[in-house]
């Protein structure tokens, strides 16, 4: 069991997402940085889809009610447990009564706390992910509050599970960054791209987009030059997915994220590739983003690169466990 001691902002329980429910208007939800969640679960030999806690703001504190193993992946949060510092992308042990403290968002924007066996909340429509809008999944369909007690699936982590780290995704999947360390995310042009003239398209690709404070799990609202179409566009409502970049009439793009509506009618200029959604998740409020025009084929290649990293990490953990004669 884990008790939430202090929390700031909308921390929530997420697994890899809720799929196959779009026809009811139910989107995927799930970890905004799915790679970090998977990595944490891999380090713990959990099912990769085991539910963990997504923490978008610090400080954040929990108390472990029993001896267990846990992992912290995603952002670097200056964590410590019982006064002992925990490195990022790291597995460690907790003893009953230990308090794990996430102090500051040093690098990145979302941290993932996974525990041995996963957080045991009910499965709703096939997933443990929280959907705030529909008030479903997670813990009573809402974000976490101090005093919440989270049940964990298993009590005993193998005693041979000791300190172990993983190479962070942004090291293994490093890409050239734009000037001033802006995050660069790749996007494939979408249906209304050609309704924007050359000048507007250039503006979209070349601009440094600022992530406004109105950015969250529903969508990232960006601030920058106004990107206007040749003439006003009014679309019939159609399905959209996380990554779709809509531009409402005010010319300021919105990247639809994991809790976005499942359909909409604003024009879409491009869609961020699935392989780069985690990079957006790790860009915080006030951070800067740039888009890179990418073909479908290159987007598939990027997806393969992510899969290769995850496959390799999975295999490494398994082999290391065998080497140590540990699960």
């Amino acid at each position, binding site marked *: 069991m884990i008790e939430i001691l202090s929390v700031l902002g909308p921390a929530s329980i997420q697994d890899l997402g809720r799929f196959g*429910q779009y026809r009811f208007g139910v989107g995927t939800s799930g970890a905004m940085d799915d790679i970090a969640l998977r990595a944490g679960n891999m380090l713990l030999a959990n099912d990769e889809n085991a539910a963990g806690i997504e923490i978008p703001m610090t400080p954040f504190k929990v108390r472990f009610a029993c001896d267990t193993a846990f992992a912290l992946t995603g952002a670097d949060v200056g964590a410590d447990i019982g006064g002992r510092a925990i490195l990022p992308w790291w597995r460690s042990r907790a003893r009953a009564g230990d308090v794990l403290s996430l102090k500051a968002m040093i690098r990145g924007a979302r941290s993932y706390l996974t525990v041995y066996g996963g957080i045991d909340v009910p499965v709703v429509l096939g997933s443990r992910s929280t959907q705030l809008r529909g008030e479903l999944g997670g813990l009573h369909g809402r974000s976490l509050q101090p005093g919440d007690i989270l049940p964990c699936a298993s009590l005993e982590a193998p005693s041979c599970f000791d300190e172990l780290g993983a190479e962070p995704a942004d090291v293994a999947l490093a890409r050239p960054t734009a000037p001033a360390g802006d995050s660069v995310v790749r996007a494939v042009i979408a249906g209304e791209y050609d309704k924007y003239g050359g000048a507007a398209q250039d503006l979209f690709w070349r601009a440094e987009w600022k992530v406004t404070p109105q950015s969250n799990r529903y969508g990232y609202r960006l601030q920058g030059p106004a990107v206007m179409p040749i003439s006003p566009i009014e679309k019939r409502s159609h399905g959209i997915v996380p990554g779709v970049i809509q531009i409402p009439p005010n010319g300021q793009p919105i990247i639809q994220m994991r809790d976005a509506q499942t359909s909409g009618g604003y024009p879409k200029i491009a869609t961020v590739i699935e392989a780069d959604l985690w990079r957006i998740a790790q860009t915080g409020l006030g951070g800067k983003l740039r888009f890179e025009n990418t073909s479908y084929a290159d987007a598939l290649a990027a997806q393969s690169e992510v899969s290769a990293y995850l496959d390799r990490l999975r295999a490494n953990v398994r082999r290391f466990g065998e080497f140590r004669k540990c699960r």
Partner: protein
Amino acid sequence: MTTPNRPRISLLGTTAILFEAPGTFDLPHQRRIWALAATASKWPGIREAIPGITNLMLTFETPPHAVDSLVSALIDGWDDAQEFAIEGREIELPVIYGGEIGSSLQTVADHSGLSVDDVVSIHAAPRYTVFALGSHPGYCYLGGMDPRIAIPRRQTPLQRADGGSVSIGGSQTGVSASPGPSGWHAIGHTTWTFFDPSWPTPAALAPGDTIRFKVGRVIR
């Protein structure tokens, strides 16, 4: 806005593909979309076939290496699609027009050049068909709204519109099942429950069902 006379097919990254049917926003076209959805949902690599308003989104279980064959399949599928007339249920929904939640009722009246009472009676007159579900859990997109009360979506979407709000966006109308962001103009509200994950089918309504709005009150 001109309607193209050929389908438009576009990618949503590597996650989905969008098929937009040519033709008017009406029930015969939507019935053909339902037929195409039924066919496409069985294609390999497709996770779901989700109808929108005279359009269809296919989400990928695994993205195809070559999109061309999928594009051809969609075009052929559309050509072959016969109107799939779903026999749905008929629902009556009591609505309170205007007031705090229906705060854009006057905006719609101003835009259309009609009185608030006219907007209400025009909105409540038709028997609407549920064309599609989407946007958020249980939300229904309705077909059959009178174009006289159409109004373009908001310049800047609202961060939060109330649950149960009855609103207009473009030439479409719908009812929100829960609070959340919206680019539409709210003209009223209802207290009906549209979604419950504990139900065998979590959404109360499905494509093919019909709705009639019953005017409970008009708050000016």
